[in-house]
């Protein structure tokens, strides 16, 4: 586990070495990349504002408690924390929205809580399904998507369930 926390530094060290050997401008690449990160953060901000505002309202009005209590039997049956419900709804539709939802859960429950970890694994092992489908099919000029959407949604469902189960096994 200690080695895992060194992953970024290990990667950075070795790719710098590799870049030096190849004569690639490593510092320049890092700067370009960091600038892209800034754009990413800027693009994330609108989604964060709307989602945080909505979720905070939901909690303050007592509706979130009510919904959680209603959904609890179903979620408990599948072994998924009911707090991740909103995240799972948004995930296939919007990448920045889902990242904002996961960030909000981590702010509220802590990144190392079971909920925070489950949310992280869910985000890390899934994609923005409908965005991917629309980009690929519209680029290819194919209008009939056939079985692609149901199969992709099956994969998403399996991903969410296994993320919850694996997290509970490892960290509960």
């Amino acid at each position, binding site marked *: 586990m200690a080695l*895992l*926390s060194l*992953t970024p530094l290990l990667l950075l060290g070795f790719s710098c070495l590799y870049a030096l050997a190849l004569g690639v401008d490593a510092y320049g690449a890092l700067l370009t990349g960091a600038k892209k990160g800034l754009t990413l*953060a800027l693009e994330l901000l609108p989604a964060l504002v709307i989602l945080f505002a909505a979720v905070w*309202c939901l909690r303050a009005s007592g509706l979130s408690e009510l919904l959680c209590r209603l959904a609890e039997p179903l979620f408990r049956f599948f072994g998924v924390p009911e707090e991740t419900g909103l995240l799972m709804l948004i995930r296939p539709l919007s990448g920045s929205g889902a990242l904002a939802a996961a960030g*909000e859960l981590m702010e509220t429950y802590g*990144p190392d809580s079971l909920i925070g970890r489950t949310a992280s694994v869910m985000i*890390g092992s899934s994609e923005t399904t409908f965005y991917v489908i629309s980009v690929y099919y519209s680029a*290819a000029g194919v209008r009939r998507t056939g079985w692609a959407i149901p199969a992709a949604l099956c994969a998403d469902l399996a991903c969410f369930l*296994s993320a919850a189960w694996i997290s509970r096994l490892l960290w509960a």
Partner: protein
Amino acid sequence: MLNLLFSLLFLLSLFCAVLTGKETETGRALLDGAGAALRFCLDITGSLCLWSALSELLAQTGLSGRLSSALRPLLRRLFPRSAREDGICEALSENLSANLLGLGNAATPAGVRAAKGMAALGEGGREELALLVVLNTASLQILPGTIAAVRASAGAASPFDIMPAVWLSSAVSVGAGLTAAFLLKKLWRCYR
């Protein structure tokens, strides 16, 4: 979908606040939430930038290019029709390796190139296009950098310790996607 979801969230919160008499708290929460979002965004910007810097370096050193040649044999089994065309096979392996390294920005253009090529191959190509889409929606990341960056700024003790769980869960998701694709393909053929 998102329009409906967010409209419902705001409207139902409004109703619930009036019903439970929590008007003041809910009104404040709306504005406080927006403020908290900005602070959170500032918090994650640093680690997000660092991760993007690393991704860019990985892309520019051509590490993903090396990975992609190692993936060819696998692709020939998954996409027997398209892998016969050199251009498509190259785009496919580029797409897959960029996905594995978590380089989303590099994965999409390669994937789109492959998708265009596949669409031109007729019915067989279109089935493989659906498989490509399913694989891309199932996420094959080895390095979940973005979410780890968010974890780091939220104060996680070891932001990358979720990696083994992400690998397992990704594998389950890809397995489920491939199985569903296989079964649905048969079902679709019967239906016609």
